[in-house]
Structure formats: structure tokens, C-alpha cells
């Protein structure tokens, strides 16, 4: 909401010591937040004056352009009283027009210095200004042509243009709809400085009678009050006076025609949206009713709207002429021939207007006010004010008759303990202060013992609850009076187990050299194809967003790989060639038949209701994914580097499992998007928690990541569930270790894990550790075979091993490996 300072002053006489800064600061602290102050005059140093164009000589130029050599009367402003010769390129004016002239010596916005200069064969002494040149904005072409009554040649143009009048823009919160008007803003200013307030809505209005334009309200819930007044003999050629046009523009509205401008002006002044109909184009009584099926209306914005049966309409005998509170129809709008006008000022149900706006995706200045709540006592005053202006400025005559249908809803009465504002704010507020402030807000207040009853004023439909009264009192006392006190929280237990473990996961992975990323969860079908997921893959079952930002990505991720691979590609594209990324994030695993109920809010949901909500929210497990490409270890003076591979992907998850004390089993498998020969299934017992390995070459291409990039993705929740949270202190032997190495030849297809498991079991309890230190294939071991070399360490807990004990254990290990895996000792 924008308002000029002079307009505010019309209703509250601000003393000189209330500077603009003080005013905006006080209003901000009352809840009308200062957004911006604009004062166009600040950007210009004069002289800027009114001029009358005396003569125009059109002079065609070689380049095809026509320029105007003008003689302009600027009164005595140029010191000589002689007409000023000025070159002008615009053509939207004629001789006799009043224009805005910038004389030599003036500086316009952008340090644009105006001086006498020779151009097009003349000495041009000044400039005829456009709005843009003066920094006034607007989308007008050409120069400013002032209304004929704007002033006389030589007058200071700042005043005429309203440029000496700062415009304050407020951010109005949805609960303070009353402040979407000068009436509301000025009332707050008066309240803030304890000054008298002149209410522009306080006017005596003619009593309702049956002589006015007939109105039938069929839906009094949607339209509790409807007021109609008529005028006749309006002069459709009458122009909007300069002062009104300026104020509309200052408030961000475009002047259109006098009738429309008056309607908008009264809305800004009082906060009551209203509408003017061309009476000649109305057929029969005005009817307020719901739309019927199939009904249509062309609204003022020239859009044909298919109406819903839930829409509340203003209609006449020919059909709809407006959507209540939202926008009028084209067929009955004021035109250049309108002489008789029906003025509507009504009160509409906020929800009805809000829903219509949502349905038609249409938001107007009227609906903005109605859906937030307008003073229901305003319609009569507003209609009367519109009529007054149509008479005064448009030469109309007010017709007899005032139609008033319905009555304003009764105001709300709220009861609170008188100390509630003090108790809730923590400020020491006396009872009399509470009473005084509520009265200042406009409440009708009474005190009975410790119980305060307040009847909210008609313009504050937002004040309905006890705590609303608290806010009113506290904002006037001042939020800056709230003391600073730490609440007495009970002793806490710190982070939850899961939160601690996740911190540990992040630190472990960062310690392994991986960098955490955060990706958007938005993916598309194309991602499933890029990952080469089979048609029946679970990961293709995804939640779909109704209103995605990008129509190509309407789905919510079921896997973190698309986001991570895009980040990987982005890094490589930017020249970060050695990249190791990780992300922990929720993924969305819907069943497809989630239905969340909308419950009541007047009580706690029942246990069943709560269970139905919990059930309807899709499962969202936390996943961990990693992606690796380029060097795992750099080449350097120390020797060769090492490329990240499938084994790093598996190894990283193994390291993490070890850190968390989880026994992770690794087995070979195939799954998209991994390389079919280089994919590991990661299990805890029987439960598969994820996969790791090299990315399929096709997938690398599809995402534009380097060949042999490696990835892993696991269900992190599942891993954390199995984490060892309380580690038992280890017992270890201080007796000497005995080392034995064995080299076993097995079929190439035998997994080393199986050999190791057999060795481990066969070696028995003297085995302390086993480590595969070499894998070898080639002629020496034979075709289709591989050699696995293991280092075994034996140790007893309670004694030094005797000669032969370790080698016996080794032999037992080899024997079992031979039996289980066909291993032959080399």
C-alpha cells in the first residue's frame, strides 16, 4: 500500500516535529512496516516549471524524423518573461497544452544536466519533460501533458506533479486489511502520536428507502450488505482533476477515466471496494446470486470466464455482470457515453471472494481487501462518497433513493483476564494501560473486576481472539519493551542416537576425502531412462508434483544418484577432475494410495485420526550416496597416482560400516545403473542395504560423467539401525605373534570372500587376523585360475604358541579352503 504524506495529513494533523522518519518508524513499530519512501523531487534540482506551448513548428529531418521547434510560455520563470524556444522530439501534444519544462541549470535524475545547446539548427533552451525523464516511472509514451487546470505558466512544477510530496510504501500484513486505506494508515498515525483523527468515513448518509435502484440479494451469507446509489447527468467527457490523478499514481494506480478513477480513489481513501455500472446497460434489478452451471462472464480485463456454481455473482436480467468482490463485467462498464451510473458498495464474505480468486486465478485490488476483511459498516459511507465526487467532479446529479439490503454482522465481543497482555508479553503492563490502548484501537472496553470485555471496532474484523487483544496492547506499549529472559528449560539429553550417528557418518566420509553436496530432489522420467532402470523397477514409482518448476522434472527422487551424477558432471565440466562426492538425503518411497485426511482444528486428533495421518505420509528413508571420478590419489614426486574405481566405492561404504561397528557383507550382483560385472550388493545379514561399484558405461554417457565413475547408494537408516552404539572394550594378547603366509590357487570365479571365510573358519580361534595381500593371474597359475596370497597372524590369549601350533592351524585353514572352494596351495 502506497500513500503520499499529504494525503495522510488530510486526516491527521501531524505536528512539524513528527518528521517523515519518525512517522515511518512509529508506524513500523505499530505493525505497518515501512517498505520504501520515494520522493522524486530529491533526484531533481530545479528549475522545473509549468509551461504553455504557444507554437509548434514541425521540421522534417534528413533521417526521416520530424522534430518540433516549440515556443513555450514559462511565465517569468526564465527571468525575461519571453517565450522559451525548445526542441522536442515527442508528438503527443498540441499548441495550447500545459507541459512540464525543465529550464537550463536544472539537473535531472542520472546527473543529466540541462543547458542551452545548439541542435537541429536552433538554440534549444531547456527541455519539455516526460515522466521517465523526471524519474516518475509509468508507462506513458511521450511528454507529460498536464490537465488544463493544473496551473499557470511559470508555476513550480514540483507541486503540480506532486513531486514535493513523499510517497510512503507500507508492507501491510494480511491481518491488517484496514491499513489498505488512507483511513487505516492515518488512524494508526493518529494512534501512534496520540493525535486526533478525522475519519473520512464519518459522514451522514441518506436513510435507506425503496426509491433506489432495485437490488435482490439471494445469498445473504455471501453478501451481508449491498448498497446501491444512482446518479444521472454525468458528463462522460469530464476529466479527472490533476490532484486525484496524482494521488492515484502515487498509490500505484493508473488514472483511466473520471468515473473509474473516483471509484478507485474512494477505495484507497476508505478501504471499501466499490463499483460503478452504466445504468443504461443494466436490465432489471441487480441480483446477487450464485452462478448457474455453464454461465460465462467477460470480465473487465477482457477475459471470458467460465463460472463455477460456487461463484457469487452480481447479475441483472441479462445474466452475470460481475464476480462479487473480484471484478466487474465488460458489458456494463462505464463508457464515453455513460451519463447515468449505479454505484455499488457491498460487503462480501471473505472466504467466498478468496475462493473465487483462487478458482479464476484472478487477484484484484478489490479482492485483496475483501478476502482480508473490510469494515462492514462502510458501504453506505463509501457509496455516498462516490456519489459526492461524481456530482462534484463529473457534473452529475444525485438521484433520490438509497438501496440498502442486509445488515452488517454484529461485532465480536472478547473477554480476557485484564492481566493477559502482561502475562503473555512479559512486560509489566498496568490494567489501565491495557484499557486505554484497547480503547485507542477503537474497542468498546469494559472492566468487571479482573475481567475485561472488549468489543472490536467494525474496521478490525481480524480482532476475534483473546490473544488478538494482547497483540493490540503490546504493539502500542512497544515490542521494544519486552525484556530478555532465558526460559527455564529442563535438563536435556543432547542429540538423539540417530543424530549423533549421522554426524559421525559425515565426519567419516569427509575424513575419507569425500565432499558433501545438497541436490534438489526434482527428477523426471528421463532420469530413470538415463539410469537404465527396468520398467518394473521400484525406483520408477515416484511422487509427482502438481506444479513443478520445470515440467521435465515433476517427480520426487527415489534415489540420490541423478542429483549426485549431475553434480559430478557439473564439477568435471568446471575443471574439477578429481571428485569424490557424498550426499545424505531423504528419498520418497510412495505406495501410490496415500490419502491424508484434513482434520478439524478445534481439538487434538483422536488416536485413529493421528494414525491415519501418519499412515498417509509416504515413507521417506534417509539414503547415502557417493560418486567418485578421477584420481583417488594424485600422482606426484612420490610416484604414480591411483584412479578411483569400483573398489573405492565399495571400500568407502565398508569403512563407514567399520566405523559404525556394523558387519557388512559384500557379494557380487547385477543391478542398474551399475556395470554388470562390477556391482556389489551390500548386506547386513540377510538384509540388502545398498549397492556399490562401477557405473555402467551407458549411464556414464547419459549423465556426461567420465567413464569408470564409481557410485554407491545405501539405505542409511538401515545401516544406522545396526550401528554398535556401546562398544565393549577389547581384550588383546601381549604374547608374541606367529605369522604364516599361504598362496592358494582357485577358479577365477570363486569370490575371495568365500576363500577368506573358509580360511578364517578353518584356522580356528588362534587366528588373530587375515589379510589378502596379493591377487595374481597368469601363465603360472593356469587359465581360468587365480592365485590368492594371504598373510595370517596367529596368537594365543594366554601363552606363547608352541612350535608347530601356528603351522598346524594354517594347514587346517588351507584344508577347509580346499574343501569349500577347491583351493590348491601353491
Amino acid at each position, binding site marked *: 500500500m502506497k500513500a503520499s504524506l499529504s494525503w495522510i495529513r488530510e486526516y491527521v494533523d501531524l505536528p512539524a516535529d513528527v518528521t517523515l522518519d519518525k512517522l515511518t518508524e512509529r508506524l513500523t513499530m505499530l505493525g505497518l512496516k515501512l517498505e520504501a519512501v520515494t520522493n522524486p523531487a530529491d533526484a531533481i534540482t530545479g528549475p522545473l516549471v509549468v509551461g504553455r506551448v504557444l507554437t509548434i513548428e514541425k521540421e522534417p529531418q534528413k533521417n526521416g524524423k520530424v522534430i518540433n521547434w516549440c515556443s513555450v510560455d514559462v511565465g517569468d520563470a526564465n527571468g525575461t518573461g519571453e517565450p522559451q524556444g525548445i526542441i522536442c522530439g515527442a508528438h503527443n501534444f498540441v499548441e495550447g497544452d500545459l507541459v512540464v519544462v525543465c529550464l537550463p541549470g536544472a539537473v535531472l535524475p542520472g546527473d543529466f544536466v540541462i543547458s542551452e545547446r545548439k541542435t537541429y539548427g536552433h538554440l534549444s533552451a531547456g527541455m519539455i519533460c516526460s515522466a521517465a525523464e523526471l524519474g516518475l516511472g509509468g508507462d506513458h509514451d511521450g511528454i507529460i501533458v498536464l490537465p488544463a487546470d493544473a496551473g499557470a505558466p511559470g508555476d513550480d512544477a514540483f507541486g503540480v506533479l506532486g513531486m514535493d510530496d513523499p510517497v510512503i510504501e507500507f508492507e501491510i500484513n494480511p491481518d491488517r486489511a484496514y491499513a489498505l486505506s488512507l483511513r487505516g494508515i492515518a488512524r494508526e498515525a493518529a494512534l501512534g502520536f496520540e493525535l486526533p483523527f478525522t475519519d473520512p468515513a464519518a459522514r451522514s448518509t441518506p436513510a435507506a428507502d425503496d426509491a433506489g435502484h432495485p437490488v435482490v440479494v439471494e445469498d445473504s451469507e455471501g453478501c451481508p450488505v449491498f448498497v446501491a446509489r444512482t446518479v444521472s447527468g454525468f458528463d462522460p467527457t469530464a476529466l479527472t482533476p490533476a490532484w486525484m490523478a496524482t494521488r492515484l499514481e502515487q498509490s500505484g494506480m493508473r488514472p483511466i477515466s473520471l468515473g473509474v478513477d473516483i471509484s478507485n480513489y474512494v477505495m484507497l481513501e476508505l478501504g471499501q471496494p466499490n463499483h460503478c455500472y452504466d445504468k443504461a446497460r443494466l436490465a432489471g434489478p441487480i441480483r446477487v446470486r450464485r452462478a448457474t452451471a455453464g454461465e460465462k462472464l467477460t470480465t473487465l480485463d477482457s477475459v471470458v470466464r467460465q463460472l463455477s456454481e460456487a461463484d457469487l455473482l452480481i447479475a441483472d436480467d441479462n445474466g452475470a455482470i460481475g464476480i462479487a468482490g473480484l471484478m466487474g463485467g465488460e458489458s456494463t462498464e462505464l463508457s464515453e457515453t455513460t451519463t447515468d451510473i449505479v454505484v455499488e458498495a457491498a460487503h462480501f464474505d471473505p472466504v467466498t471472494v478468496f475462493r473465487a480468486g483462487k478458482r479464476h486465478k484472478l487477484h484484484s485490488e478489490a479482492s485483496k481487501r475483501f478476502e482480508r476483511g473490510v469494515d462492514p459498516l462502510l458501504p453506505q459511507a463509501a457509496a455516498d462518497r462516490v456519489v459526492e465526487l461524481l456530482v462534484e467532479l463529473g457534473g452529475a446529479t444525485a438521484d433520490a433513493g438509497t438501496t440498502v439490503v442486509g445488515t452488517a454482522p454484529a461485532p465480536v465481543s472478547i473477554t480476557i483476564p485484564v492481566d493477559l497482555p502482561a502475562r503473555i508479553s512479559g512486560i509489566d503492563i498496568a490494567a489501565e494501560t491495557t484499557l486505554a490502548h484497547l480503547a485507542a484501537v477503537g474497542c468498546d472496553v469494559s472492566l468487571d473486576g479482573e475481567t475485561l470485555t472488549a468489543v472490536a471496532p467494525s474496521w478490525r474484523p481480524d480482532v476475534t481472539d483473546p490473544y488478538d487483544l494482547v497483540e493490540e496492547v503490546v504493539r502500542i506499549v512497544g515490542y521494544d519493551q519486552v525484556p530478555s529472559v532465558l526460559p527455564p528449560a*529442563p535438563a536435556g539429553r543432547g542429540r538423539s542416537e540417530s543424530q549423533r550417528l549421522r554426524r559421525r557418518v559425515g565426519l567419516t566420509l569427509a575424513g575419507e576425502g569425500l565432499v558433501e553436496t545438497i541436490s534438489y530432489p526434482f527428477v523426471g522420467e528421463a532420469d530413470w531412462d538415463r539410469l537404465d532402470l527396468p520398467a518394473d523397477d521400484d525406483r520408477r514409482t515416484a511422487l509427482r508434483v502438481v506444479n513443478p518448476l520445470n515440467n521435465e522434472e515433476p517427480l520426487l527422487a527415489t534415489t540420490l544418484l541423478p542429483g549426485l551424477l549431475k553434480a559430478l558432471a557439473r564439477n568435471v565440466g568446471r575443471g574439477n577432475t578429481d571428485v569424490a562426492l557424498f550426499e545424505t538425503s531423504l528419498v520418497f518411497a510412495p505406495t501410490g494410495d496415500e490419502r491424508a485426511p484434513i482434520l478439524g482444528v478445534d481439538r487434538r486428533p483422536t488416536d485413529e485420526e493421528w494414525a491415519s495421518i501418519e499412515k498417509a505420509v509416504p515413507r521417506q528413508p534417509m539414503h547415502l550416496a557417493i560418486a567418485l571420478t578421477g584420481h583417488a590419489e594424485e600422482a606426484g614426486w612420490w610416484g604414480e597416482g591411483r584412479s578411483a574405481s569400483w573398489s573405492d566405492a565399495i571400500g568407502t561404504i565398508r569403512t563407514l560400516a567399520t566405523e559404525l561397528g556394523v558387519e557388512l557383507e559384500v557379494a557380487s550382483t547385477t543391478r542398474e545403473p551399475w556395470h554388470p560385472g562390477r556391482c556389489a550388493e551390500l548386506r547386513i545379514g540377510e538384509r540388502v542395504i545398498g549397492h556399490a561399484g562401477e557405473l555402467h558405461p551407458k549411464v556414464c554417457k547419459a549423465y556426461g560423467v567420465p567413464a569408470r565413475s564409481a557410485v554407491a547408494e545405501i539405505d542409511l537408516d538401515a545401516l544406522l539401525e545396526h550401528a554398535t552404539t556401546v562398544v565393549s572394550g577389547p581384550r588383546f594378547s601381549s604374547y608374541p605373534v606367529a605369522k604364516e603366509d599361504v598362496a592358494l590357487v582357485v577358479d577365477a570365479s570363486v569370490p575371495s570372500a568365500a576363500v577368506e571365510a573358509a580360511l578364517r573358519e578353518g584356522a580356528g580361534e588362534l587366528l588373530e587376523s587375515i589379510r589378502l595381500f596379493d591377487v595374481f593371474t597368469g601363465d603360472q597359475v593356469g587359465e581360468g585360475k587365480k592365485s590368492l596370497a594371504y598373510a595370517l597372524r596367529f596368537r594365543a590369549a594366554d601363552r606363547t604358541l608352541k612350535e608347530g601350533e601356528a603351522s598346524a592351524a594354517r594347514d587346517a585353514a588351507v584344508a577347509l579352503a580346499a574343501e569349500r572352494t577347491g583351493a590348491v596351495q601353491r
Partner: protein
Amino acid sequence: MSGPNTDYDPVEVTPLKAEEVERMRDEALVAIAAAADLDELKQVRLDHAGDRSPIALANREIGALPPQARKEAGARVGQARGAINKALGERSAVLEEEHEARMLVEESVDVTLPTDRRSRGARHPITTFSERLADIFLAMGWDVAEGPWVEAEWLNFDALNMGADHPARTMQDTFWLEPAEAALVLRTHTSPVQARTMLTQEPPIYVVCPGRVYRTDEVDATHSPVFHQIEGLVVDKGITMAHLKGTLDHMTTALFGEGITTRFRPSYFPFTEPSAEMDMVCFVCRGVDSDACRTCRGEGWIELGGCGVVNPRVLTACGIDPEVYSGVAFGFGIDRMLMFRHNVTDLRDVFEGDVRFASAFGTEI
């Protein structure tokens, strides 16, 4: 070598003559002193103190002396051997020291060579900053609560006093999920976590809810459809706006230092009444000569977020008796605070996954 002499007859054994023994000793000492390195010394040891050295051979001749002469000869040879061994030990120590000193010189390396075999990992600053913020509240005894990202419409809106027809719903541009009757949204704020907490715990409640939220904002330098909030909720007996102010003052002081406190301005949120915007003193200019300050753009204050007294309607919907309990709540953007605290100028850096971004912050913030 002479055989053992069991007689008491004096026998002349040349090597055991005093002058001979002295000569052997002196020759040995000269050779030891002359040994230039450990290898030479090793040879000297063999030549003058080894099994075949003159002194060792002389020692063996002692047995050839008549018994009464052995003692004297033994003492003479023993003293000579002692002197040789002592000299050997001393010379050896000197030479070893010289050798080690030389080795250390020869083994010197260029310690300025690069050592970056593996690149350093990092956690995302949003993660670490969320933890840092939560730490402040954990230290006050609060809990950290979390909730799902796809949330029931009722929890995201209705339970928070934003019914279907509430104009405030349009303040939060919402991602809705299909089908409409599923009544699911990507949560637009972390407030549903507050509702969940109230629905599942008895007061007193002291929680912070850091987490990811979603709104239909197009991506630019200061907007993202995905961002992060931290909200706090207290529900207890006798809770007032003063407790809210105290908590927030403590938080800003803990993060930005003494004197960095907050102020409230009236505002509106459906879930709080009274509601306030909270600002904190600019931690760069501290409100002094703010005009040139680029952090607060001359305001002296930095906007943090919203807060207020929990609307009793919210307490009621979540099963808490507003006649017995009152609550306060606050919320602000983690991304935004990260940006101004750490001079991050483009929000896109937070979400694009360029490793250079997170790497700059390391594993704690």
C-alpha cells in the same frame, strides 16, 4: 707358541718383555688415533685387538712363563689391552658421531615438496551450520526434532491455523503433490515438526527443528526452491515473549559475539499471536556508522525471521490446553544466515555441488 711351562725355571719369552708390550700398545694407540673412519677402525681393531693381534698372541704366551712370572706379565698385558680397548671405544664413539652427522647431512630432503596425495573431504556448510545452531540450543537443554519433507497438508497448514481459505496460505508458494486428494505437500516450513512434537509429547517442550523446506521460488542468487530453516518451540507454564527475546538474544550472542542482540517488530503469522519480525544488530558495523556497511546495507540491523507467541488455536489443534500452557516459537533461514555470516554472495553455490564450495568450509563451521 710356546707350550705351558709347569716349571719354576725362568724362561725368556720375548713378546712379554715390558718394552715389547709397551711397543705393541703404543703401535695400537697410534693406529687407533690414525683411523679415519669406522671401516679403518674396524681393521685397526682386527690388527691390534683381534684374536691374531700381537697383544692377543702375547697374552697366550703368559702360560709359557714360570708361574711366579705370570702375574706380572699378566698385569702388564692386561693393562696394555685395557688401554687399547679404551682407545678403541673412544675412537669408535667419535667416529660414529662423525658418521651420523655426515649421514644426517646427506639425508636432507626438500621439505617444501607438495604433500597432497589425497584431497581433503568436507561436510556441507548447511549441515555443519545447522549443527552449530542446534548446539546452542542443545546447550540450553533443548532437543533437536526432525520430520518428513513430504508432509500432510493438515500438519503443514491447518494445524497451524492456516485453513484452506486462509489468505496466508498464498504467502507460502507451495509444491502440491498428486493426486489432490492425497492432501500432501512438500513442507513449506519446518513448523509441521513443531506440530508433530506437540502432538506426540507432553509439555514442557523445548525443541529446535532444523531442516530442509520447499517453496516454488525460481532459482536465482538469493532464491531457491529448496532451502533450510531452523525453528524453535517452547511450550511450558508461564512462557512469555520475554523468554522468546531471551532465547534469541542468547542465540545471536553465541553466534556473533557479545552485544549482538535482537529486536522485535510487529508482524503477522497465522501460527503466532502476537507475532514479530526479529532483527539482530549488524555484527559487522554493530549499528555504528552503518551507512557504509555492506552487510546490513546501512540499516544497522539484519533481518532474521519471524517469531511470536504460539497462537492458542495451534495449541488447541495439537491437544495442548492454552489455559494451562503458553508457548513461543521462532524461525529463520539457515541458508540466509550462512550467506551473511560467511559472506556467501550467491545462493546457487549452496546447491550446485561444486566441491570448491563445501571444501572451503571443512568439517565444522
